[in-house]
Structures are given as C-alpha cells and as structure tokens.
C-alpha cells in the first residue's frame, strides 16, 4: 500500500465515510465519493485554502456495462497554487442516472455536463441548460453507451445506400453463367 497523499488524508479526515474508496497510482490520487455528497467534496476542494483546487480540468463519464452501478462520473481537478492534481469519482446507477450539477461550483462544468448528458444520458440536477451540445436534437439515444449499436446510423438528410459489394460480385457471376 502506497503512502497516501496529504490531499486524500485531508479528505478522509474531513468527510469520513463519504469517501468510499481511495487509491494512488504513480502519483495520481483518486477518491471515490458517494453520489449525494460529491458537490460538498468538490466545494471543499475548491474553497479550502490548503487544497485550493481552483481549476476544474475535466468532467467525464465511464460506462461499465454489466457492473453495478453502471456509470461513473469523473472530475479532474488542478491546483495552480500548489501544482497538484486530484481525481474525484462517483458511481451512478443506470435506473437513477442523476448527479448534482457542479456548475454551481465551477461555471465551466456547464458544457462538460451537457456533453456527458449527450453521450451517456446521465442527467445533472440543477443544471441551468441541460440539452445536447454536440449531436443534433433529432438524435435518439446516447452513442457512447456500450449498448449503443455500432452500426446504427441516424441520418438527417436522405442518403443513398450502396449495394453490398459481395452480393454484387455474386450477381455478376450469375449473370455471366446465364450468358455462357
């Protein structure tokens, strides 16, 4: 077991059982936080003078299809003042895929969360404008979910489909035989 960093220790001290799990891999600190308290943890990390994680680098999500809970929302934070990073994760079940919005803490979370909603269908409670950001409004489903069909296409204009080249070759051979 690696030595835990000051950030993780402080988090455990402050929040106790809210921190479900922590690990450290080659200097990367990760804390898994329970879903109800994730905004409290993020607010603490931003506002506490020892932590000073003033920059929300990224919010993203992961789909662990087949596991329970299915989704994970990941926050990457960076502190300019202390030059260090921390990763906060929270697990989200499929049937109730809602997390509180982080846009009340960092304005920049707004578009990250819209992208997660667009790609994974995870909703953010209290978000000012939760709608698709990259895909078009007519799109149905959420394409980065692991159970989204790989070959499903949702064209916005009529498209021409090409015949299957293998079938075309077979048809050509048949015609050639008939002619012969």
């Amino acid at each position, binding site marked *: 077991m690696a030595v835990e960093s000051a950030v993780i220790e402080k988090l455990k001290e402050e929040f106790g059982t809210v921190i479900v799990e922590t690990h450290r891999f080659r200097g990367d600190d990760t804390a898994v936080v329970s879903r109800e308290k994730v905004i409290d943890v993020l607010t603490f990390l931003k506002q506490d003078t020892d932590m000073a994680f003033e920059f929300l680098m990224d919010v993203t999500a992961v789909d662990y299809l087949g596991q329970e809970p299915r989704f994970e929302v990941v926050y990457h934070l960076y502190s300019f003042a202390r030059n260090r990073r921390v990763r906060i994760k929270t697990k989200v079940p499929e049937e109730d895929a809602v997390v509180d919005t982080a846009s009340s803490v960092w304005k920049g979370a707004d578009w990250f969360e819209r992208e997660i909603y667009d790609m994974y269908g995870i909703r953010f409670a209290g978000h000012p404008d939760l709608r698709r950001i990259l*895909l*078009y409004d007519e799109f149905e489903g959420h*394409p980065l979910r692991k159970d*989204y069909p*790989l070959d*499903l*296409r*949702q*064209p*916005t*204009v*009529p*498209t*021409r*489909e*090409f015949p299957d080249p293998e079938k075309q070759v077979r048809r050509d051979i048949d015609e050639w035989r008939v002619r012969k």
Partner: protein
Amino acid sequence: MAVEDAVKDLEDRGFLTGFDKVLAWARKYSLWPLPFGTACCAIEFMAAVGTHYDISRYGWEVVRFSPRQADLMIVAGTVNYKIAPALRTVYDQMLEPKWVIAMGACATCGGFYNNYSVVQGVDRIIPVDVYVPGCPPKPEALIDGIFLVKEMIEKGTERTRDSWEEAVR
C-alpha cells in the same frame, strides 16, 4: 456563291466548331471553386491555392464562399450527419453546370471514422464527379483531381446526375 465556297471562305479566316465546345473551353480554365472545408484537407486546399502550388496558373483561383457564384465544390474534410443538411443545401444552391470533388478519405468514404456520426462518403448525399485519395491528399493530388474535372468539361463527359438525384429523393 455556292455553300462550299462560303464554307471554304470561313475556314480560310478561322475554324468551325460547336458552341458547346467554345463554352467548355472557356469554363475549363475558369472554374470557381467553393471550398466546403471541415478538416485538415481544407489546409491542403489552402496550400494548393497559395503561392507555392498556385492553382491560379490554371485559372481556378477565384475561391468563392457563396455557392451562387461557384461551379466547383470541393468537399475537403469529414462530413457528419449534423452538417449534412448544410452540405446538401449548399450543393442545391449552386448553379448549373456544377462539379463536385470529394477530397480525401473522409469525404470519399468516411475515412477511418466508421461511427454513429460520420457520413460514409459524401456521395451518399450529393453526386460526386472526382474522388481524390489521401489523408490528407497533397496539393499536387488535388490539382490532379481538378485536372480530371477539366478533362470532363472539355470532353463533355456524360454524367448520370439526374438518375442519381431520383435515387436519393
């Protein structure tokens, strides 16, 4: 004066040809390209227009960003389903006669983007005359592609656009 004499007289002073051929001769050296640039191929297009490769040597340099003024559309880059209606509209707004070049792997067949968002070749939406391979193609390749369009114009190559458009609509 007999007809033969009149023809002889004309041939002495010039030559006889068809009006279509004169038009084609004028058109092939004054293509006005419309760049539909969505990705890195557009950068190569800019290089082709710039001073080093300089497509104005052939009279094709008048790049127009209004489809109403252009007759050669160069689809340079990845086209996804979100922008596909815009591509179709821009194509429809161009006046006849018009030609389309699918520049690069993405515009030709989707390239390596075989996923939920990318059109697998713009020829599923609009008729394409010339495909330029490459990822992205070098400016020389694009110039070669425009030369193929030039050949189509001067030979009056018949195109099957009408039947194509019925298939799509």
